[in-house]
C-alpha cells in the first residue's frame, strides 16, 4: 500500500483534443478518493493513466514515491476493477483470481492462501470452480474485486465498478465496498458519475468537469462549500437552486440555495414568493417545485412530510442568509 501523487498530469490526444488540462491530486496512503464528474469529463482517462493503460502526455504520476510514467501496467503494482468486470470467460473464478499471481511466479501455496483469504472476505468460497457466465452480476463484481484483492497492490483502481448492477444491488455492493476499504485500509481510487456513490464512499472527492479539476475536498466540505457553480449543481439531488442575486438582495450575480435550506412559510431572512407547480413525493422526502417570478427555473424546496400543498397554491419560501451560496459571473464562489 502506498500513496499516489499526480502532478500536472496532462492528456492530449493525437488529434489535438485535450482530455485533461493538468491535474494535481495527492492521495494519501489508505485513502478512498472518488473521481466524479459527468460523462466525458476525463475522470476515466485520468484513472487509466494511473493504471498505465493510457499514455501520459505531460506531468508525472508517482505511486508510492516512484515515478511510473514509463512503466507497463503490470509493473506499477496496482489492481484495477473494470466496469464490465473483464473476467476471463474461459477461466474459473479461481483461475481468474490467480492468473496475475501465476504470471508473477508467486509460489503455489501463497496463491492458494491469498485466494482462500479473498474468497472468505468476499464470500466467494462456493463459486471458486465456476465460470464467470454461471455467476450473477453481483457475484461477477465480487470476483473482479477478488482478482484485485489477491494482488495485494499498492492501490486499487476502480472504474465505475457498480454501474452495471441494478439499483438495489448497487446500494448493497456500495456498502460492501465501504466495509472492505475500512477493513483493508488500502488506497482506493474510484471513478463514478454517480454523486451518491461519491458522497457515500469517499474520504475525499475530486470533482471534474471538461478535463479540469473543479474541487478536491471531503464530501461534507464539497457539499457545504462548493467551490464553483458546477460543483454546486453536480453534487446534491435534487440539485441546488440558482437565482439571480438581485432577486434576494445579494450583491453577487448568482446565488444558490439547496432545497433543504428552503422552508415554506417560516421566518427566514430571505423571502421568495411563488406558486406551487407540482409536488414530488419520494417517500422520505417531498419536494415542491415552485415557480418564482424572476427565476429561470422552478425553485425546488423540501417540504414537511405532513404538509399538503396543491398545485396552484401561492406560497412564500424562506431561507437563512447563512445558507446561501454566492457565485460570481464566472461561476466561482464569491467568499
Amino acid at each position: 500500500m502506498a500513496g499516489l501523487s499526480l502532478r500536472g498530469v496532462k492528456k492530449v490526444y493525437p488529434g489535438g483534443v485535450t482530455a485533461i488540462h493538468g491535474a494535481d491530486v495527492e492521495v494519501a496512503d489508505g485513502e478512498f478518493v472518488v473521481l466524479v464528474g459527468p460523462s466525458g469529463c476525463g475522470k476515466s482517462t485520468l484513472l487509466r493513466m494511473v493504471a498505465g493503460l493510457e499514455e501520459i502526455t505531460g506531468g508525472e504520476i508517482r505511486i508510492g514515491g516512484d515515478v511510473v510514467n514509463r512503466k507497463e501496467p503490470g509493473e506499477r503494482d496496482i489492481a484495477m476493477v473494470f466496469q464490465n468486470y473483464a473476467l476471463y470467460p474461459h477461466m474459473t473464478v479461481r483461475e481468474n483470481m490467480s492468473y496475475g499471481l501465476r504470471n508473477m511466479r508467486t509460489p503455489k501455496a501463497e496463491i492458494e492462501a491469498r485466494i482462500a483469504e479473498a474468497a472468505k472476505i468476499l464470500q466467494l468460497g462456493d463459486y471458486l470452480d465456476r465460470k464467470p457466465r454461471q455467476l450473477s452480476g453481483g457475484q461477477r463484481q465480487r470476483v473482479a474485486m477478488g482478482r484485485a484483492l489477491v494482488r495485494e497492490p499498492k492501490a486499487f483502481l476502480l472504474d465505475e465498478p457498480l454501474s452495471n448492477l441494478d439499483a438495489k444491488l448497487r446500494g448493497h455492493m456500495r456498502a460492501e465496498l465501504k466495509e472492505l476499504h475500512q477493513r483493508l485500509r488500502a488506497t482506493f481510487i474510484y471513478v463514478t458519475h454517480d454523486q451518491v456513490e461519491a458522497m457515500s464512499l469517499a474520504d475525499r472527492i475530486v470533482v471534474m468537469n471538461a478535463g479540469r479539476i473543479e474541487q478536491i475536498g471531503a464530501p461534507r466540505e464539497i457539499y457545504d462549500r462548493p467551490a464553483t457553480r458546477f460543483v454546486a449543481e453536480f453534487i446534491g439531488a435534487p440539485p441546488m437552486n440558482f437565482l439571480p442575486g438581485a432577486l434576494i438582495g445579494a450583491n453577487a450575480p448568482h446565488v444558490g440555495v439547496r432545497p433543504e435550506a428552503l422552508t415554506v412559510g417560516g421566518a427566514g431572512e430571505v423571502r421568495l414568493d411563488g406558486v406551487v407547480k407540482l409536488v414530488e413525493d419520494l417517500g422520505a422526502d417531498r419536494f415542491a417545485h415552485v415557480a418564482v417570478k424572476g427565476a429561470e427555473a422552478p425553485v425546488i424546496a423540501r417540504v414537511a412530510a405532513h404538509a399538503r400543498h396543491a398545485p396552484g397554491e401561492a406560497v412564500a419560501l424562506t431561507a437563512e442568509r447563512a445558507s446561501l451560496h454566492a457565485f460570481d459571473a464566472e461561476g466561482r464562489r464569491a467568499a
Partner: protein
Amino acid sequence: MIENRPWLNVLTHAGLLLGVFFLCFPVWMALVASTHGPEALSRSPIPLWFGDRGWENYSQLLAGGLPEAGGVPVGMMMLNSLIMALLIAVGKIAVSIIAAYAIVYFRFPFRMGFFWMIFITLMLPVEVRILPTYDVIVRLDMLNSYTGLSLPLVASATATFLFRQFFLTIPDELVEAARIDRAGPMRFFRDILVPLSRTNIAALFIILFIFGWNQYLWPLLVTTEERYYTIVMGIQRMTNSGEALPVWHYIMGTAVLAMIPPVLVVLSMQKLFVKGLVEQEK
C-alpha cells in the same frame, strides 16, 4: 412464426424427405455397389441391395495393391491424404491465427497494407497460380514430399479474416485486464486468445480438413511417386481404366472408404462446429 396447418406439415416433410433421398441415394448406391462383383453394375437391373462380396472387396482394397490403381494399396493412399489434410488444416489455422493476432493487436507500419495483401489472395487460389507455384516447389526440390503437397495450400485469407473478425469482438477491457495481470504478448495469446478461439478453431478445422482431403489437382501435379498418391487421385486413376471395364466395385469401395475420415471429423466435432458458427462465448 408459428403456423399450425396439418397439410403444410405433411408437405414440408415430404419436401425434406425428397431432399434427404436425393442426398443419400448416391451414397447408398456406392455402398451397395462395393459389395458386388465387378459385373453387377454393368448388368441390368442394377442391384439395390447388398451383395455377398463385401468382405472380399474391402480386404482386397485395404491390403493388396490393385493393378487398376497403379498397385498402390488404398490404405496407403488414405494415410497420405490424412497427412496432407492434417498438415493443411493445422498449418492454415496456425498461420492465420498468428497473422490475425498481429493485424488486430499490434501497431506496425503498413499494417492495413498487409491486411489487404492477405485479403486479395482470396482471388488467387492454387488453381489460378498453379504454374508459378509449381515452379517454386520444383526449385525448392519439394516434389514428391508431404511439404510440397501441403505448403502451397497453407496460406489462408479466409481463416485470417475470420480470426480477425473474432478478435475484434473481444472487449478491450479483457486485453487491459491481462496487461494489468502482467501477461505479455505471448502469454496473452496463449492463455487468453487461443482458448477463447477454441470454437472458431474447431469450426475452421472441419472446413479446412475437408478442403485438404478433397484436393485433387495439386497432388496430381506434385506427386509422381506412387507412395505419395492421395485417395482422391486414386479414385480418379481407377476410373481411367482405358480399354478395360472399369472396376466399379473397387471404385465404389474406395469412395466409401474415402468418405470415412471426413465423416468422422464432422461427427466428432459437430457440436463445437455449430457453436463456433452460431454463438460467441461471452
